[in-house]
């Protein structure tokens, strides 16, 4: 089966006061239809940058190198107007903090209808019917919601509305950027249910960006663990979680409550001040001399000398 | 048939003659209905009120002239009144009307209109003179007789300010000062006010069809007012207006240089009745009531520089007789001279010596000789302050930024020396010859009221009740001697009026009181060939 999204050698760096700050380094990924790939990692590891780089939502001045191909098209070389055709209709994105993702002074109805009309999917009338249909299927009082403003809705409702806005455009790829951040347990369950419908049709791919291992384990087929802008381990979700190869992955899993809060010693380095060689070596118990000088390649989905 | 032809030919000839005559009539008529004279002025007419607005009232003198007016020499000549006589007791005045003046709506101007106008002014206008209120006015055909309760000889100064207006129009208007109308206003002179529009800042004077005197050249005279002098002058230079007028004032002397660079305009200088002076508080000030001090100060003032800076050179150095040379009965008195050394010697001699050597003189009590200088004029005030300081005086400078403050201070006699200006109208106020500014028994915001010398007050009273003639001439001579000897005030300079003359226009007739905007000038102005 042909991959929907293929990222190869993606590097992203931001301008900083003392030169460039690398946020993502030489990242390669692929995602097939009906598949869910989770990128997990801790804050500042660059996982959200990947999501924004795909949709070209990064602020101006950011340097993006490499190739992001969506169904064979290199997104990095499209014009803005061509990109507008891709965004929403082809690739949709579910944002974190849904209350803030909706325009506070615009009625929800309009925010759901206008993108559909803009993309020429249907007439305004149909768009309204479709929007109501989707809202209803998500268990909302469609008529009331359509004529209210985002601030009148609870966080859970906003979350559904944002999801509805994305799914109404029938994208082939959905990117969920930290969708569970700051949510209550009940809302997390809700969201997982919604996201699982994305890949159910076997044609749409889901790129899940999260710091939450549990969510990743429940939703994804494959998982990629990021640390300081690099993928340190990638593979089938089940195998990575049950038998992690990379020491960082192991440490991460060990810190989880169910594994007894065993901490990784030391702290993550700042992106502007990364150590040479393997970025994890100062905190790694198995570090060797070569780890200090060379960046290990991704072998069998794992980026580590010893493993 | 022959006869018939003869008739036809005769008819043709007759008609041709008729037409020729008519054409000749039109051709010889000097009025060009399409010609427009545009006057720029900074005197804004804020509301279209014939009586209520000060600036409008100045212009109405041209359209509804008073009985008499002032000519270019400052003499009184007839306007609506052709001639007049006065009884020997100075109580009965007879004015004979000029038949040229007829109302622009076709009705004739009668003695009744004059009577009405005078009584109307007495009754309705707040600034009307007091004598008119007690006067009895009678009419007979074209003669108006004013009978006064007490003899008044300085009557004309007031009469030039009372317009003769149509009774059939104003008779029904109860409060003329509040009456507002965009025109037309029925007038009696060569022009009448056709319209006045505060939004477009334009007043239009049109030729009076009933006017029987000489026809003016310009079919229309427009007055355009501007919010600032600069804008008015720029409009002139930019070709928007033909000439400049400002009531009671010269063209701004500091801008005269600008006209010289323009090809369209030249300037005419005429001596005016305006002047600048300093007055001494002779009533409650120690130094001010000391004649020797006053005389010394007269030497301390740099008159040439005051002329140069205060009037941009457009003024004459004054005499000790105070009154400008353009005023009737002017006589030559010793000129004011600047000589600092003399001033210092005289101050020393008067007992104001700098004993302790600190550069400041002490008065007879031994304390520093301090004078309070009151002024409203930034430039002159600063100069005078400097001159006094150079003479060794300590100057307390009181700058009144508005009239209110100035009036308050001068009414309290809270000054030793005060700077002020005198206008053409002010020169004629009260007993005339500037006495109104000095006499302590007069009232008014601009007046110093700084002399209570009985000799002076008696002189003023006499002048007020003496008819024109040798006796008056002698009194005015005495007055000038009084000014020269006692120096209640020192004339700093006599202003010169500058009038911009448009080289494309001939026939200028510039009045001392009203400048170019006077009836005589409007009749005589015409384009240059």
């Amino acid at each position, binding site marked *: 089966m042909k991959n929907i999204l293929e990222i190869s050698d993606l590097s992203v760096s931001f301008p900083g*006061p003392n030169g460039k700050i690398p946020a993502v380094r030489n990242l390669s990924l692929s995602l097939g239809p009906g598949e869910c790939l989770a990128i997990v990692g801790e804050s500042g590891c660059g996982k959200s940058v990947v999501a924004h780089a795909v949709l070209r939502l990064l602020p101006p001045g950011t340097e993006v190198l490499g190739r992001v191909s969506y169904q064979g098209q290199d997104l990095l070389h499209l014009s803005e107007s061509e990109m507008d055709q891709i965004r929403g209709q082809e690739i949709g994105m579910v944002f974190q903090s849904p209350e803030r993702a909706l325009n506070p002074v615009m009625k929800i109805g309009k925010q759901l209808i206008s993108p559909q009309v803009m993309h020429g999917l249907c007439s305004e009338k149909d768009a309204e019917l479709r929007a109501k249909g989707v809202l209803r299927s998500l268990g909302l009082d469609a008529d009331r919601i359509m004529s209210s403003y985002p601030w009148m809705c609870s966080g859970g409702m906003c979350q559904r509305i944002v999801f509805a806005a994305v799914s109404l455009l029938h994208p082939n790829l959905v990117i969920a950027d930290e969708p569970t951040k700051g949510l209550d347990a009940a809302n997390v369950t809700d969201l997982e249910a919604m996201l699982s419908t994305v890949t159910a049709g076997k044609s749409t791919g889901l790129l899940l960006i999260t710091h939450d291992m549990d969510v990743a384990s429940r939703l994804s087929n494959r998982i990629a663990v990021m640390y300081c802008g690099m993928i340190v381990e990638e593979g089938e979700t089940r195998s990575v979680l049950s038998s992690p190869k990379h020491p960082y992955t192991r440490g991460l899993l060990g810190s989880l409550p169910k594994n007894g809060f065993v901490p990784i010693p030391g702290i993550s380095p700042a992106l502007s001040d990364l150590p040479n060689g393997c970025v994890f070596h100062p905190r790694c118990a198995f570090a060797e001399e070569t780890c200090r000088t060379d960046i290990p390649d991704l072998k069998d989905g794992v980026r580590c000398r010893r493993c | 048939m022959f006869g018939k032809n003869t008739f036809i030919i005769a008819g043709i000839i007759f008609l041709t003659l008729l037409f020729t005559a008519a054409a000749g009539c039109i051709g010889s008529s000097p009025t060009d209905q399409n010609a427009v004279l545009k006057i720029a002025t900074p005197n804004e007419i804020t509301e279209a009120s014939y009586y209520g607005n000060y600036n409008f009232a100045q212009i109405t003198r041209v359209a509804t002239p008073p009985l008499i007016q002032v000519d270019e020499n400052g003499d009184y000549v007839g306007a609506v009144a052709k001639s007049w006589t006065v009884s020997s007791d100075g109580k009965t005045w007879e004015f004979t009307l000029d038949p040229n003046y007829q109302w622009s709506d076709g009705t004739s101007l009668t003695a009744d209109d004059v009577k009405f106008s005078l009584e109307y002014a007495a009754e309705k206008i707040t600034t009307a003179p007091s004598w008119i209120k007690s006067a009895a006015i009678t009419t007979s055909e074209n003669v108006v007789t004013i009978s006064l309760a007490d003899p008044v000889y300085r009557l004309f100064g007031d009469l030039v300010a009372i317009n003769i207006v149509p009774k059939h129009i104003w008779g029904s208007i109860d409060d003329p000062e509040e009456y507002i109308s965009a025109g037309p206003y029925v007038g009696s002179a060569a022009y009448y006010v056709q319209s006045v529009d505060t939004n477009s800042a334009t007043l239009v004077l049109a030729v009076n069809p009933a006017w029987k005197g000489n026809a003016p050249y310009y079919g229309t005279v427009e007055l355009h007012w501007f919010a*600032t002098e*600069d804008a008015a*002058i*720029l409009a002139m230079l930019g070709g928007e207006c033909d000439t400049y007028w400002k009531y009671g004032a010269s063209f*701004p002397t*500091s*801008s005269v*240089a*600008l006209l010289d660079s323009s090809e369209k305009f030249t300037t005419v200088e005429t001596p005016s009745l305006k002047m600048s002076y300093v007055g001494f508080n002779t009533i409650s000030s120690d130094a001010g009531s000391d004649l020797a001090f006053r005389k010394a100060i007269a030497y301390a003032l740099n008159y040439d520089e005051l002329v*140069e*800076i205060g009037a*941009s050179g457009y003024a004459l150095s004054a005499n000790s007789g105070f009154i400008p040379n353009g005023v009737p009965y002017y006589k030559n008195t010793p000129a004011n001279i600047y000589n600092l050394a003399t001033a210092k010697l005289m101050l020393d001699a008067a007992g104001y010596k700098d004993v302790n050597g600190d550069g400041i003189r002490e008065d007879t009590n031994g304390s520093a000789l301090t004078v309070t200088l009151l002024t409203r004029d*930034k*430039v002159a005030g*600063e*100069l005078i302050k*400097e001159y006094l300081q150079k003479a060794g005086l300590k100057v307390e*400078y009181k*700058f009144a*930024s*508005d009239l209110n*403050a100035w009036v308050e201070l001068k009414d309290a006699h809270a000054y030793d020396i005060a700077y002020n200006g005198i206008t053409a109208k002010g020169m004629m106020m009260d007993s005339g010859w500037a006495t109104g500014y000095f006499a302590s028994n007069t009232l008014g915001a601009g007046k110093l009221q700084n002399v209570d010398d009985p000799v002076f007050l008696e002189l003023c009273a006499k002048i007020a009740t003496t008819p024109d003639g040798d006796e008056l001439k002698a009194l005015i001579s005495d007055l000038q001697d009084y000014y020269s000897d006692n120096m209640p005030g020192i004339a700093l300079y006599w202003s010169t009026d500058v009038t911009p003359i448009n080289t494309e226009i001939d026939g200028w007739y510039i009045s001392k009181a009203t400048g170019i905007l006077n009836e005589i000038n409007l009749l005589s102005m015409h384009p240059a060939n």
Partner: protein
Amino acid sequence: MKFDRRYILPGLLILLFLIVAIFPGMFAPYSISDRTATYQAPGADHLLGTDNMGKDIFSLLIYAARWTLMIGFASGLLAVFVGTAVGLLAGWRRGALDEFLMGTTDIVLILPKIPLVIILAAYLGPSPWVLIFVLGLLSWESIARVVRSKVIQIRSSEYILAARCLGFSDCRIMFKEILPVVFPVIVPKFVLVTAAAMISEASLAFLGLSDPQTVSWGGMISDAFTYSGFLRGMWYWWLPPALCIILGVLAITSLAFIHERGVREVMQL
């Protein structure tokens, strides 16, 4: 914190103006009472020529800095003082006092300033002090508002709660913890009030509502127009003070903007 190079140019300009204002004698070739020939064109003797009284325009320009800056900064300081006090009190105490103070602020906000200054100057007579007091006492409302909203935001922030837990007194928290944090938002407001006061002074001078005994840039421009400097094409008379006002205001305003941007960056982190 790193020094921002954008501060240099406006900062130096303000510094220059201040030095000139404090020590005019060091820079002015003539005193303001010296006079020579009137209406001279610029030349070697008189850098910017002379005015209607024969005074050296360049020297006047230098002496004028004092009152103009004085009016600007004094009203700015007054506004900051009142505004900060009101804002701190309203934000910290909340409740009825807050309601009252903010109501007052709203009212001051609505009062049209220039017309009020004009009517007061007409009644009280124009003096720089009237100007300072009126402009200062009418311009604090925006300062009070930002200070208040900042204080409200800060007072429930965790470091203030922590400080209270640690046993710091209210007074100490107010002056040592809150004020320094509020300070960055006051600074741009202060300079904006200062700039506005300078413009107002110049505008009132144009209406003739300035004290002729004090030399200010606005007064100089007004003089140039009163004594036909404008008509005579003496741009060297009215343009330099105009430029001084514009540059001064521009420098002050840009300091505010640079600072505000800096504040925004700091606050967002």
